[in-house]
């Protein structure tokens, strides 16, 4: 009897984990917003399989090149989930997979929308301070979760720094001979 329970548990853990891992390989991260439910279980999210609601909202990204990308995304997802799940072409976005170590998921909102996004944690503010091109209505995409009220919002992807990396084109015209 007890052996049974054990097997069930482990199997479940394995299965759940597998589900999570699939999410992981698909999305490169666990859904940030869903994990909150589990924060008191000693910090480990073994049960991160999808609890996503079916409901969707429309979001419009203004990308760096000025192009507009519109998607329908699930309520409960973070904006990082959205970028990853829809495979949006935003270079370098979400490098730390939503773990608040990078600020590459920086997004800029309209003032009215910004106010609806909810409180900002200290850790997010600290990382935001290190974001390039910071504005008063900036947030980190991995910390913003979709809600119904946000339907139709427009958000802007800020410019990246003019990259320090020397690309081949520039190299030919500007780089001195190698030292």
């Amino acid at each position: 009897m007890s052996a049974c329970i054990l097997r069930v548990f482990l199997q479940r853990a394995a299965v759940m984990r597998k589900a999570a891992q699939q999410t992981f390989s698909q999305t490169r991260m666990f859904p940030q917003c869903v994990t909150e439910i589990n924060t008191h279980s000693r910090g480990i999210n073994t049960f991160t399989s999808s609890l996503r609601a079916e409901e969707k909202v429309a979001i419009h990204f203004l990308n760096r090149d000025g192009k507009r990308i519109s998607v329908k995304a699930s309520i409960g997802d973070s904006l990082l989930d959205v970028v990853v799940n829809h495979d949006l072409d935003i270079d370098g976005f979400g490098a730390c997979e939503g773990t608040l170590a990078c600020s590459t998921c920086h997004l800029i909102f309209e003032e009215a929308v910004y106010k609806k996004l909810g409180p900002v944690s200290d850790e997010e503010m600290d990382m935001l301070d290190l974001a390039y091109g910071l504005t008063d209505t900036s947030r980190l995409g991995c910390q913003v979760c979709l809600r119904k009220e946000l339907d139709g919002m427009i958000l802007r992807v800020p410019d990246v720094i003019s990259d320090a990396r020397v690309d081949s084109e520039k190299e030919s015209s500007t780089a001195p001979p190698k030292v």
Partner: protein
Amino acid sequence: MALQSSILHLARKNLLQESCKQFLLQAHGLHKSTASGSLEIAAHSQADLKEENLVSPAVEGLKETTVKTLQEMPGPSTFSNLVEFFYRDGFSRIHEIQTEHSQKYGKIFKSRFGPQLVVSIADRDLVAHVLRSEGATPQRGNMESWKEYRDMRGRSTGLISAEGDEWLKMRSVLRQLIMRPKDVSAFSPDVNDVVVDLVKRVKTLRSQQDDGQTVLNINDLFFNYAMEGVATILYETRLGCLENEIPKMSQEYIAALHLMFSSFKTTMYAGAIPKWLRPMIPKPWEEFCSSWDGLFKFSQIHVDKKLSDIKKKMNKGEEVKGGLLTHMLVTREMNLEEIYANMTEMLLAGVDTTSFTLSWSTYLLARHPTIQQEIFEEVDRVLGGRAPTGEDVAYLPLIRGLVKETLRLFPVLPGNGRVTQDDLIVGGYFIPKGTQLALCHYSTSMDEENFLRPGEFRPDRWIRKDASDRVDNFGSIPFGYGIRSCIGRRIAELEMHLALTQLLQKFHIEVSSQTTDVHAKTHGLLCPGAPINLRFVDRK
């Protein structure tokens, strides 16, 4: 102003926007330093330096060859560097030398350590620039000696020593477990148990002194606290480091850790001494290996014990529940050797760093009674006598400010390294792929362009008026920034926030008459140059 706009104009035309932006920023700095009028000599030499920079692009910017080569980069000669480091024991003053050199040679300069060329960057914006341009798998420095030991013993690399895809694979697993503030905050009950023992230990130790209030060499105590704290989270086990009698196994580990630390210099040479010389100078390499043996052995014992516990439970048909290690052992996203290696390296990285910071924090509190009182009042207002949880920390901005300000004044890693993964242009210099960079965090955090009156201890400089108030910047990034930044950051913060809060609730912290000014010295890490002795007086 005219100068600025002409530069701006140039910048548009110029392909090298970033280097020009840099000049702009420096021009900005120039205004500040002349306006402040303080420290005439320093301001003067800085101004000289900037003028030079300002002029050159204006003249040369028209041609398209403003990028300078490494050869043109200023820096101390190889010989003077040798004297500085080996003869005048510069290793223990690396943090000061950073600042001296950046004042003398500018905020980007090169030095040679034997065959190794190092480009030092002591400017906030240039540091930001380098870290923001990082690719998928940044590299900190040459880890050959670490790798060699691991190959020799058939061990895996851990996060610190691994590179490339191997590193990324492990990092992706671990960051999902110990980097999200919310996840880590769930460990606060476990950490609070350790804090209870810390407080008890303070009482025991002070009772052993004549005045009944002094704890000698506070870092020993915080070392044991940090070790106990990180082990609680990583190994889900208590080591007994805060007991009167420390268990033998933990003692052995501490000895290995001390050996690793005390032989830091020798181990640094262990990597630098060419292999063929080892038979003649065997000691550094031998010590290096034997301390690693000790460290690996310890984590292996703990990991194996947990594994056998899990197996036992499974055989008995019990539910397997647990924390970090259990999770890793059950899910096996990393293999067993990788788990050993990461547990070893995380424990190594997590003890001295946290304990030095706690030592400095309490020292600074003791030296600044008014500030201590302000922070105490905040804690008292928010918590009363109740023990804090991870969530409470959000309402204790001064406790957070205290830790940030301590790490600004005493960044445990006074400098960090990066090996460039692409050709870069930084500060107007072309830096080829594969160059070792030194990011001078100590200099930038003591730079008055970044922090007003940088020498002053002011935790409140980190307080925000509201969510849109920006106070932080790249001048002080004690845990690094980006995908290769400190993976233990949130764990360390939790340990420090909870310990400092409770210590303040229980004690009034004072400097012992046996302790005068304590200066920092570099020993791999920035550590107290003399024992810090503090008095812990009960609060009524």
